[in-house]
């Protein structure tokens, strides 16, 4: 069973529906006892970093997540959920994250030129750097996925699985051990996205 952490940020309808569509059992909850029974966890999220971190903190689930990561239970962060996995973020200040993935979250505007719009909204191509990663075993170089974000991972070259080009190399998939992150929305990326969720269920 896949546990989807419900901490009051974002719309989980599509994520739950896409797992249902794939025939994968999942539950949307913030209850620790339920999540502990799950064999893998998805941390979703949209909105601002600090607000989301605070909401996650309030659920009291962070120590459980720390423990799960230590045990090697597969964890997938999506969009802001991926950003929360990093050491820290510079979104409206400087805030610590969960620290499972080393690197920072920075404003895209700081490194890309004014010609490009921020947020980065739309379909962009994946360029795979670590083909052996199990999360992308069904994914091909050049597959399109759907992005919506204004901040991005930085100083995380060593753990990069795939990136996309948007005036800079934008981390798209990152992974350390059994912790995975997607900057894009697999649940909104058509067939390509469904295959990534399927691959996650098989890790």
């Amino acid at each position, binding site marked *: 069973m896949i546990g989807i952490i419900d901490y009051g940020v974002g*719309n989980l309808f*599509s994520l739950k*529906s896409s797992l249902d569509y794939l025939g994968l059992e999942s539950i949307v909850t913030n209850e620790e006892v339920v999540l502990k029974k799950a064999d893998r966890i998805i941390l979703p999220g949209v909105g601002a970093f600090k607000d989301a971190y605070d909401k996650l903190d309030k659920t009291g689930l962070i120590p459980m997540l720390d423990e799960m990561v230590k045990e090697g239970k597969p964890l997938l962060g999506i969009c802001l959920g991926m950003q929360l996995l990093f050491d820290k973020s510079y979104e409206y200040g400087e805030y610590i994250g969960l620290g499972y993935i080393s690197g920072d979250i920075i404003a895209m505007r700081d490194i890309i030129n004014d010609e490009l719009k*921020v*947020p980065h909204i739309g379909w962009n191509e994946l360029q795979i750097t670590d083909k052996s990663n199990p999360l992308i075993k069904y994914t091909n170089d050049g597959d399109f996925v*759907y992005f919506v974000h204004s901040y991005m991972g930085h100083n995380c070259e060593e753990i990069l699985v795939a990136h996309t080009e*948007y005036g800079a190399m934008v981390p798209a998939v990152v992974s350390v051990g059994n912790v995975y992150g997607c900057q894009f929305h697999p649940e*909104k990326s*058509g067939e390509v996205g469904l295959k990534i969720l399927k691959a996650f269920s098989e890790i």
Partner: protein
Amino acid sequence: MITKRIIPCLDVRNGRVVKGTNFKGVADVEDPVKLAKLYNKAGADELVFYDITASLEDRPLFTGILKEVAKEIFIPLTVGGSINTLNDFDRVLKAGADKVSVNSGAIKNPNLINEAAEKYGNQCVVLSVDVSRVNGEYHVFTKGGREDTGINALDWIVEGEKRGAGELVLNSIDTDGVKNGFDKEMLGVVAKLISIPIIASGGAGKMDDFVELFKIKGVDAGLAASIFHYKEIGVKELKMYLKAQGINIRV
């Protein structure tokens, strides 16, 4: 690099897609779920649903359709039509919408944009504006293009971005239904004023209209309804054509 988006728009009335909203003929109808699946398969980059159901009694029917589509189609879905309050946002988001389009509801209460952007994020709030030229000025229209609000459209669009809209759908009433190309002049003017993505609507008649559209700097997407519904242009065929013309397109 990010691709230009092709977005079919489905006007849903009483649970059916209205094919062509012109005044001449009887509106033909289609099952929205079937049509959404067809467009998804053809490679549509997003889908827009407008709830044009007049009576409130039919609302559950609309969200029911939305849920049915959202359970099987995993591309971004935008929903608009009679969005006046945060409760309306909540209702359609819970039924599977990813973005919510506001039009006259935001004109009546501009704070709706701020409140929704704060609660759901800018990416969730799409400002849709119906614009027509009046004495050399761009005016905002409501009620399906029948009522001139007298509001300067350029001012309203800039204000909408400032208030937190994450995208703009610009419907040109002047080119809508004419099928002689998008309103390049209007789009060019607006694109210079804002930095959020612009979805152009109104005027698509042939594939080259989209080629011309994407030459305008700052236009990110093209939206159309009847040309896709009547199969005058196939979504897949259009995308292949645009790609062959050197436009960055997801195929």
